[in-house]
């Protein structure tokens, strides 16, 4: 165990990454990443597209196998970590709609499984937690509506409600506000703010922070498979730095120049 990790254990490391390397099909995506998120911190992982920031978070969650290095969650090596109820995951988007309808309440109720286990039927505590989480994201009135009828931003809020319903200590969000309307972004930031104020830890991957900027304690910029910067959230490069830039783009923006690239960057082609 490295000094860093043992230091984290002595402290209160919630997510501890040590010299992590990850690759797919022989291509190395993360070369050497070390990171420690302590209890109560709100940490953003930034980086250009293709920098490996999503891979980093997916590896931390166990969705991508570790190549080299170590990951600890709540002081337990990830391979032996069992207490998944302490972790709430908010993916980029709702799984591909399959045609079988599901209500907002049913999707959010999935967030209780980690805590309840698969054998116990849902009880009143589960129903109360679902309603509470939906109240928090402002969607309680949509509880019986099919998720497919919600806007993109509302679907994203449904996903954060699903994570919150499990009453986690740590929220992990993968580009939570990508493709989300401005009103939902504000609602999102408010929910995360309340979660953090209650002592929760947040680790989020973002392309641009938008209204979440004031919440961030520190940021790590992933570049070329390594952490290129660790500290206060850097000012974005390009016209995002201009005052009054509201971080909202029409979907098919004609010009690609100036799309948020966090310095340092080698301007990977936009896809």
């Amino acid at each position, binding site marked *: 165990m490295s000094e860093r990790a043992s230091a984290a254990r002595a402290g209160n490391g919630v997510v501890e990454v040590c010299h992590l390397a990850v690759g797919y099909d022989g291509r190395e995506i993360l070369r050497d990443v070390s990171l420690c998120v302590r209890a109560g911190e709100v940490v953003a992982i930034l980086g250009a597209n293709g920098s490996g920031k999503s891979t980093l978070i997916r590896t931390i969650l166990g969705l991508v196998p570790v190549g080299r290095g170590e990951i600890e969650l709540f002081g337990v090596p990830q391979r032996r970590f069992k207490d998944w109820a302490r972790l709430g*995951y908010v993916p980029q988007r709702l799984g591909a709609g399959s045609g*079988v309808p599901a209500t907002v309440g049913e999707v959010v109720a999935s967030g209780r499984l980690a805590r309840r286990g698969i054998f116990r039927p849902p009880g009143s505590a589960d129903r109360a937690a679902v309603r509470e989480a939906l109240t928090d994201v402002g969607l309680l009135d949509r509880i*019986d509506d099919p998720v497919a009828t919600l806007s*993109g931003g509302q679907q994203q809020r449904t996903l954060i409600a699903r994570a919150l319903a499990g009453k986690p200590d740590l929220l992990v969000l993968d580009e939570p506000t990508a493709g989300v*309307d401005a009103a939902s972004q504000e609602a999102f930031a408010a929910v995360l703010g309340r979660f953090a104020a209650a002592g929760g830890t947040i680790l989020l991957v973002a392309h641009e922070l938008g209204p979440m900027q004031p919440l961030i304690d520190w940021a790590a910029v992933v570049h070329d498979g390594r952490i290129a910067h660790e500290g206060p959230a850097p000012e974005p490069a390009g016209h995002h730095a201009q005052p009054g830039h509201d971080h909202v783009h029409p979907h098919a923006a004609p010009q690609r120049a100036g799309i948020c690239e966090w310095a340092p960057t080698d301007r990977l082609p*936009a896809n």
Partner: protein
Amino acid sequence: MLRALVAALIIGLAAPSLGIYLVQRRLSLIGDGIGHVALTGVGVGLLLHQSPVLSAVVVSAVGAVGVELIRQRGRTSGDLALALLFYGGIAGGVVLVGLSNDSSNANLMQYLFGSLVTTSPQDIVVIGTLGALVLVAMVTFRPALFAVSNDEEYARVSGLPVRTLNLLMAVTTAVTVTIAMRTVGLLLVSALMVVPVAAAQQVTRGFRSTMAAAMAIGLGAAGAGVLVSAEIDTAPGATTVILALAAFVAITVGSTAWRALRRRAHPPQEVEPPDVVLQRA
């Protein structure tokens, strides 16, 4: 006749309860693939002079688990894996049935398209027991199976035993296919899993209500299928599937018409603000 009806009703209830998860994970055709493999199982049973139903359960369960493992590895596309299964299963079945002593076209047809009338009291016990097991498993584990089918990665991060649940689904599919073989036949098994779900989801809003409605439609189609086929002397399996499809068409047309009428009666009061989509470079 009464035995045939009971068997059909059990299948009509159990098949859609499983089928809804298959539809949700876009594996609507997997039941068909497993059905083809089950024919190989029937061939093995006839060849070894064992119960064809028993050997079909075993062989199709092995096939279903194999497909699931291929799917998890992600090496072969699900589409290609299904194709291999279809052709291997049906070819193996025809060859093996041909090799067995009591090979005859009638024998093969009985498994391909069902033969309710020859259902023995023993068959009813097997169908009833296995059907009840499928039903209980699908209803008991609904929250977990819903989570896995809806968002497999989220289910993994929730610490759910995703692999075990997927294998449970695979084995349950094999069991359902085999018990439904007597009712609708291996070539139409999948229809009973999928068509009631397709019909139900035209009008339902949630997963639980879709499941309940699909089971009701499956039950109705199976019951009516047996009665109608006895009346007009047609194959019960095919009649059941035609009735289920008719329900699908009727519900789709009815709900579309109803929505159009309602829209005319109550034009929308306010339009929701358009979503502004962030550019994700």
